[in-house]
């Protein structure tokens, strides 16, 4: 299967010539992981959140095995595996990827090879290695993004093994339904929201984070409206327990554990910023003029970035371009 996919690579990559997963990989090259410790936070029941460097990991552990959402960076795999073992001795059976950025899938190969799954039927004799690694589940656009990467491409053992191209995909694992929903054109066009139905926990990937404005990866199909759609979907799915607190717990791509009220504040902020920029565009403002109005000023100290690939200015420019093209 993997050999066949490599042959398709040259065809698909021509469609994604401008795609480059540069940001996380550039960061990876410079980052020192020696001092990074993987912290484990118990969320609820058999759901945990792992925090380290890169994206948060959601972990579900039970009698059937261990399922994780995302895998951070490759150099952290041993530490992540130790953290998994501190929770459960069961095999790592599933990896679900929320999207294709390397701070979320970098550890795919390492961790998948540390896991295993039960294979049977007519796949055993057709594909070598079947059952000897964890399954990696993702929207097919994750594979497309990986294929489009020409430099430091992810090891093939880390490529998704089970992809979906429809609106959603369901699993049932460790006694609960796990609903994986494609959120198109959000942070990227490969985003999935993962809802652990019985545990009432949502993993959002980078559609939502508490650390900064969203990174809208236009090159990989991201859009501001898609991010807002994703956040509104999360709000529709989440139900607070009491007084707008608790109930559905939400694990963001980066940052602290949250619930509906935190997503609400983030959604409100982005909607207001979008509306401000849209109004200025209606008034005929150029990008420079919009930037001069400082449409994010009241949120910048909390969420803005002045350095890196996706600065506040880039964020405003991205929204401006998107709204101007409508």
């Amino acid at each position: 299967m993997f050999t066949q996919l490599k042959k398709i690579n040259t065809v698909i990559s021509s469609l994604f010539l401008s795609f480059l997963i540069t940001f996380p990989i550039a960061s990876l090259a410079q980052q020192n992981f020696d001092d990074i410790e993987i912290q484990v936070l118990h969320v609820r029941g058999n759901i945990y959140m792992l925090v380290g460097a890169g994206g948060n990991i959601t972990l579900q552990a039970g009698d059937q095995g261990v399922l994780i959402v995302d895998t951070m960076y490759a150099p952290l795999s041993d530490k992540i595996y130790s953290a998994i073992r501190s929770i459960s001795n069961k095999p790592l059976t599933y990896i679900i990827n929320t999207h294709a950025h390397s701070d979320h899938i970098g550890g795919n190969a390492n961790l998948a090879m540390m896991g295993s799954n039960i294979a049977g039927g007519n796949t055993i004799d057709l594909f070598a290695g079947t059952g000897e690694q964890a399954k990696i589940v993702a929207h097919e656009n994750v594979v497309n993004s990986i294929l489009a990467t020409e430099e430091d491409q992810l090891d093939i053992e880390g490529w998704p093994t089970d992809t979906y191209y429809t609106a959603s995909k369901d699993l049932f694992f460790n006694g609960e339904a796990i609903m994986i929903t494609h959120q198109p054109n959000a942070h990227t066009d490969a985003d999935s929201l993962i809802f652990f139905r019985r545990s009432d926990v949502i993993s959002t990937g980078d559609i939502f984070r508490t650390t900064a404005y969203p990174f809208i990866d236009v090159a990989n199909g991201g859009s501001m409206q898609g991010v807002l759609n994703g956040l509104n979907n999360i709000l529709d799915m989440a139900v607070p327990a009491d007084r707008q607190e608790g109930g559905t717990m939400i694990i963001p791509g980066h940052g602290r554990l949250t619930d509906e009220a935190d997503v609400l504040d983030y959604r409100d902020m982005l909607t207001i910023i979008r509306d401000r920029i849209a109004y200025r565009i209606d008034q005929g403002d150029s990008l420079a003029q919009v930037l001069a109005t400082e449409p994010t000023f009241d949120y910048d100290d909390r969420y803005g970035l002045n350095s890196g690939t996706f600065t506040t200015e880039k964020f405003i420019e991205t929204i401006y371009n998107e709204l101007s093209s409508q």
Partner: protein
Amino acid sequence: MIKKYIITFSMLCAFCFSAQAQIDLSGEWGAVFHEDFDERRPGPEMVEYQGIPINEAARRRALSWSPSLLTLPEHQCKPHPSDYGSRGPSNMRIWKEIESETQQLVAYHTRIRWQAPERTIWMDGREHPPEYAAHTWQGFSTGRWEGNVLVVRTTHLKQGWARRNGIARSDVSEFTEHFFRHGNYMTQVVIVDDPIYLTEPFIRTNNWKINLSQQIPPYLCETVTEIDRPQGVVPHFLPGQNPFIGEHAERYNLPMEGVLGGAETMYPSFIE
């Protein structure tokens, strides 16, 4: 034998040292609204920011705030966060949690009437959670005694408000309280430190008086759709379009530079 002598001597010396006994804060406390009645009971007016050390980001954000935001179902049942709860139209109950075997004080708990938030002030020396733990409306509070004053530090707060007319208080804030009890009176000093929206720590005090006949009723809240709107619409005012600017200043004949807030409005130099 020697032990008995030591015990006897110690008991007789019980008054040798100045009494620094902790006092009990438990009880039914009625809020005394002899200050800021308007703000605390019916609520502040729009664009009334005086006396708060807000920065420009806080001001702009407050000016964009529309009270219609509170009609959104997700905003309807929010309680006041713990730094603001005592400012609201609410009486308070404080009770102790005592560990049965050791009779050690484990925690104080509080309950405020409006929206019925209950808060735990841990007195057992435990650490605050890591920074990636969930934030709540009441935050995570730990207390210690300084003589007979309870000093409380609270972190892990959700985004809240410094005044409930749109002045935001960020989720990276923390605050400190001192509970000074004098007989049947208690003064609660609250100092909020918000590096995002305040230029300096912000102090306010709330006064309480024991009310032996107080009953705090249940407070239920269920959200409803009050206004039919398309999904994702967030009421707010665009920059420069807040229709209420100047209304409060004009009504009470106050200078605009005062009602727009800022640290300079807190000090006597403002009127010099």
